[in-house]
């Protein structure tokens, strides 16, 4: 009997061993993988891979970088957190709650843009934000939509107790809006513009009301970056080369934006309209200035308090300050002994100085 127990244990251990080896180990390596999902500000990642710009920059540093598209946004973050990828595009809020909250030391390598109207609240047959009181609101719970709702309610003196939040998958949001019992939704582009186009829909609040709070960032594993600075240089160099191309109205820029538009299921006009509600940092100087701004620590404090309030910061989180966030000037929000999210503009500064 004892023998068979011992045998079974060994077998189980052997079977589960691969699971335990998954975390990305800090070491010098040459092959890197980053992931991204569909969003207006992240479409350049797919184009970098397809156009060969990424390969050009990777070759310059003698490494290889594979950029992988993942259909489900949350799944892409989970994969990064589990150690399958060295970097992933995500918002500041999700970076704090999923990888950083899960103990994966994460650095904001490229601050790409912030939502400036890309996320919004839509009411059916009502025109004022205050009318949302007492309604059922369909949104992806615990996402930036939820955060936007909480911030919007603050502005009219309401709180979440005044309404009922229904967790609704983003994939079903448009179909949901078509049903009679859905009267209020919070969502993001391209779904937002699709729903807003309906005749009974009024956008009563959007992220332009809280500029700079929903930030889209390429997050990378801090240890991997520390051991392989070339990885950071190649990614940053490729990114800003493409930013220069896509912000211009040259043929090359239009071709790039058209390709991104098609990849996100719209056309050039539709994509340009989404870009108009996105504050893209086309130059590294803008991104560096934003990352160093005094508002960023304020924003991260809001975000941490929201996450704590919703119980997302993880088991045993005694306060919003449970996970530390460090900023370019060396200041830290939260626990200095548990800094897991780092805003480090040094690679973007290199891009600005032209030293990549």
């Amino acid at each position, binding site marked *: 009997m004892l023998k068979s127990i011992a045998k079974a244990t060994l077998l*189980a251990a052997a079977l589960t061993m691969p699971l*335990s*080896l998954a*975390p990305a180990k800090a070491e010098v390596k040459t092959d890197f993988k980053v992931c991204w999902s569909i969003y207006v500000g992240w479409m350049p990642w797919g184009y970098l891979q397809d156009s060969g710009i990424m390969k050009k920059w990777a070759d310059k540093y003698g490494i290889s970088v594979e950029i992988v598209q993942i259909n489900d946004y949350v799944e892409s973050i989970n994969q990064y957190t589990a150690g399958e990828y060295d970097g992933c595009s995500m918002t500041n809020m999700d970076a704090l709650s999923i990888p950083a909250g899960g103990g994966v030391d994460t650095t904001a390598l490229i601050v790409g843009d912030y939502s400036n109207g890309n996320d919004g609240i839509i009411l059916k047959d009502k025109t004022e934000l205050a009318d949302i009181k007492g309604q059922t609101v369909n949104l992806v719970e*615990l996402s930036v939509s939820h955060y936007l709702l909480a911030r919007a309610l603050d502005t009219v003196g309401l709180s*979440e107790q005044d309404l009922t939040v*229904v*967790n*609704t998958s983003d994939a*079903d949001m448009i179909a949901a809006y078509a049903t009679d019992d859905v009267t209020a939704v919070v969502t993001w582009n391209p779904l937002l513009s699709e729903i807003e186009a309906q005749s009974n829909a009024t956008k009563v609040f959007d992220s332009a009301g809280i500029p700079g709070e929903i930030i889209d960032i390429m997050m990378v594993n801090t240890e991997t970056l520390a051991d392989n600075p070339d990885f950071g240089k190649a990614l940053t160099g490729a990114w800003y080369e493409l930013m220069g191309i896509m912000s211009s109205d040259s043929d090359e820029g239009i071709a790039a934006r058209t390709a991104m538009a098609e990849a996100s299921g719209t056309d050039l006009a539709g994509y340009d309209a989404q870009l108009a509600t996105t504050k893209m940092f086309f130059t590294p100087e803008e991104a560096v200035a934003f990352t160093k701004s005094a508002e960023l620590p304020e924003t991260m404090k809001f975000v941490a308090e929201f996450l704590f309030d919703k119980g997302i910061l993880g088991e045993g989180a005694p306060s919003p300050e449970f996970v530390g966030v460090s900023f370019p000037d060396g200041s830290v929000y939260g626990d200095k002994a548990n800094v897991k999210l780092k805003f480090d503009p040094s690679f973007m500064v290199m891009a600005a100085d032209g030293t990549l």
Partner: protein
Amino acid sequence: MRIINRKPSRLTTLVLGLLPFAATVIGYAIASHYRRLDNPADKLLPSLDSMAAAFWRMATVPDRRSGDLLLWLDTYDSLWRLGTGMAVSTALALSFGIAIGFIPHVRAALAPYLATFSLIPPITILPILFITFGLGELAKIALIVIGTAPVMIRSMAQAVLDIPREMVIKAETLGASVWQMITRLVLPQLLPRLITALRLGLVPAWIFLISAEAIASTSGLGYRIFLVRRYLAMDVILPYVVWITLLAFLLDLLLLQLSRRAFRWAHLGGDAL
């Protein structure tokens, strides 16, 4: 003695039965231990302790926002949906099963349609269900019914067809009306098969329940899992999976015992899993 004739004692049966479970838990604990050596706050394979703590918290500590005990609220709501859906499916299976199996004209009219309908993957028509039934409870229950009823009806109709023809002829010879044959001959033969169909129907029913709750909901076991998935809270997800499995297992066991008690004659055939 040959191995096929050596029967384990009661104690050995119990120990052998528990062994794979123990091996799974030990295997998990080892994998989790190695991952947490690397990163003590690892979210993917949390420690058994932290899962127990999270489960305890869900079961006994009122939610910060609503003041509900989340585990019990989720369990109650999910079981209510599952129970309502399966009650409707069972009623449909019994009535349509007898009609299709016993009355040739009904069979000719409905059997091919039903066979085709049962092949539609229910998830694919979910957007239609939304628009028809709204996003509330009705759509979720409808998904369970559409997912389970056709197959249950088919298995009931087959069970009616399997009743020996001689018995039907004998009843007719004795002058029984159609109604008498249904109540005295078909129904008693069918009820134990109905419980079997219900037990088998519960397997896809759980899948449809969880899928429906994942899409638009404010409570339920599936809702909770898909909600906390947003921040990779495996310390909540894994105990919930175990809890769902336990509930499904108990339901199945309950139905088996019911069948054994109520229809003793249907269980004379010896061992059954």
